[in-house]
């Protein structure tokens, strides 16, 4: 049976990491074996007592001691309450849930495209690649509106030393790259020739990046996107996170692009109008 009751979670610490965003460290009370099986791209339900539960992704998955990190942007009641908490306060935790990113580092050349807060669900995967010195296999293009909208400042410093990492801003100052990640696709494809795309950010960015990648020769079945949906249960029961006949909390939030298109009944060219956001 599914357990719908949260486990106890301790707020260890947090620091500002991007506009209206904080980087949290948590500790799960009495971590269990399945906590260690958490994959990058999966999510957890965070309970803020008195307010409710909401889904967030891991920046780093739980370790042996149940410690993990999450980047959370202030968005509404629940995050307002969370941002007002102090180290040592008690929260609730359920997870891990959903499907993470596929792991297939060996023969693939992976392009990671992230927009704004969409970098967070990819952090665990980028970390792994940079630790394993897979610089020839994985490169990142990260877009944000302005530099204050960028998140994971400390991680990006580290990653930039290990793997090809392009940052681009809608509002760029002199000396910075300007535009969306898509504006740099020709250059990226000419240099690293990726055959796989992992993308997370506003839906319009993901669909745009997916379409452009198909035009650059990537198979739709080698593209993964991470969809955001309202989620209340995380376990396929409350119904809120539906995408066609699938529930994002079970079959996603990471979807293979061709499957996502089949689910929404959309083709490459008509998906976008139905799916604008952010």
């Amino acid at each position, binding site marked *: *049976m599914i*357990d719908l009751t949260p*486990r106890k979670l301790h707020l260890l610490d947090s620091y500002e990491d991007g506009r209206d965003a904080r980087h949290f460290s948590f500790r799960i009370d009495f971590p269990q074996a399945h906590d260690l099986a958490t994959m990058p791209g999966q999510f957890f339900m965070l*309970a803020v007592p*008195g307010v409710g539960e909401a889904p967030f992704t891991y920046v780093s998955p739980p370790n042996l001691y149940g410690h993990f990190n999450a980047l959370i942007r202030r968005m509404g009641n629940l995050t307002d309450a969370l941002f007002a908490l102090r180290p040592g306060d008690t929260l609730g935790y359920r997870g891990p849930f959903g499907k993470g990113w596929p792991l297939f580092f060996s023969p693939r050349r992976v392009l990671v495209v992230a927009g704004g807060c969409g970098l967070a669900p990819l952090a665990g995967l980028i970390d792994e690649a940079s630790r394993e010195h897979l610089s020839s296999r994985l490169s990142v293009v990260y877009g944000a509106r302005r530099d204050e909208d960028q998140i994971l400042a400390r991680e990006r410093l580290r990653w930039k030393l290990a793997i090809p990492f392009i940052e681009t801003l809608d509002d760029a100052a002199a000396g910075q790259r300007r535009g969306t990640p898509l504006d740099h696709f020709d250059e990226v494809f000419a240099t690293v020739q990726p055959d796989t795309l992992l993308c997370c950010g506003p839906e319009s960015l993901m669909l745009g990046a997916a379409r452009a990648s198909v035009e650059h020769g990537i198979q739709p079945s080698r593209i993964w996107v991470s969809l955001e949906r309202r989620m209340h249960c995380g*376990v396929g029961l409350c*119904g809120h996170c539906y995408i*066609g*006949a699938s529930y994002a909390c079970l079959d996603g939030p990471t979807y293979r692009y061709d499957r996502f298109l089949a689910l929404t*009944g959309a083709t490459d060219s008509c998906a976008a109008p139905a799916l604008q956001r952010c």
Partner: protein
Amino acid sequence: MSTHELAEVERLRRHLAQSRRLYEVRDDGQGGRHWQEVGPKDFTPLEPEGDPPPFSAKLFFFAERELLFRFDGGQFYSSLPEVRPQAIFGLHACDLQAIAYQDRFFAQDPHYQARRHATLLVGVECRESCSNGFCSLVESGPLVGDGLADLVLVRRDDARGWWLRVGSAAGAEAIRELRLPTNLDGCQATRESNAARVALAQLHDRELLDGVAALNAGQVSADTWETLGTHCFGCSGCTQVCPTCSCFAPLEQVGASGEVQHERVWDSCLYEGFQAEASGHNPSASPGQRVQRFWLHKFGEPFREQFGHYGCVGCGRCDRVCPGGIGVHGVIGEVGRP
């Protein structure tokens, strides 16, 4: 499984009510009909025919509002319901099919299963079609599918009582003390003629199947959905009465003592904010998208593959409750027209 002779159905009901809470649909004296508790000394005759009750039996298992967990400031405590043994008496085949559907959907939900495991299901097979029903077209009635009820009542044509079909070990155990004689003479023939009579009465509804085909072929345009959507009041009537609807929302409250109670309450995919995210993004912002979603969930092939049955059991409740005329006939009947 065995079939027995039962002279008086009320005797069975009184017997079952002795050792469990028993619920049957009764007039509430104000023009409504509801599931009500019936005691072991109740002699009121059963009225098995007629339209199914406005509310299906799903509320016995998937409670309209229930506590999931509590938080006392230090710990979280789960709160599973303690359910006394109960019997739901007089369920129609369509509603039993819906329970089977929800049994699958909530297979891993401890709250649902706690209620369900404490429950004996007693079905009654309809001899006439109800007014909006089309069970024969979606294979959910009028005959009760094997294994969908613990006991099933079949009325004899000659008005000499009933057959009682036993559908499970729990059903057999529940009637053991009654020592009913076994007899299945004529039972099958009666059931078959009931099935034929109901199917004939529902024949005119075959246009619904054209609607289902159009829906699954993706032949219903976004404009059609939007037009239908303009008739949706977002009142959630259909999702409340539909026996297979299962969406819920959380409701968290802090009591005077500071204790936090986290409940779940029925929700509706027809509400505008059903999918609205904290960021403001709403993937089903238009009423047409939400109406389409409701009907895909009821008749979409992917769901049928997953659950072995359509999400619609043909009870006709949505037609009766929808103020905008977009119940099953108003939508599925409409989208199949050339």
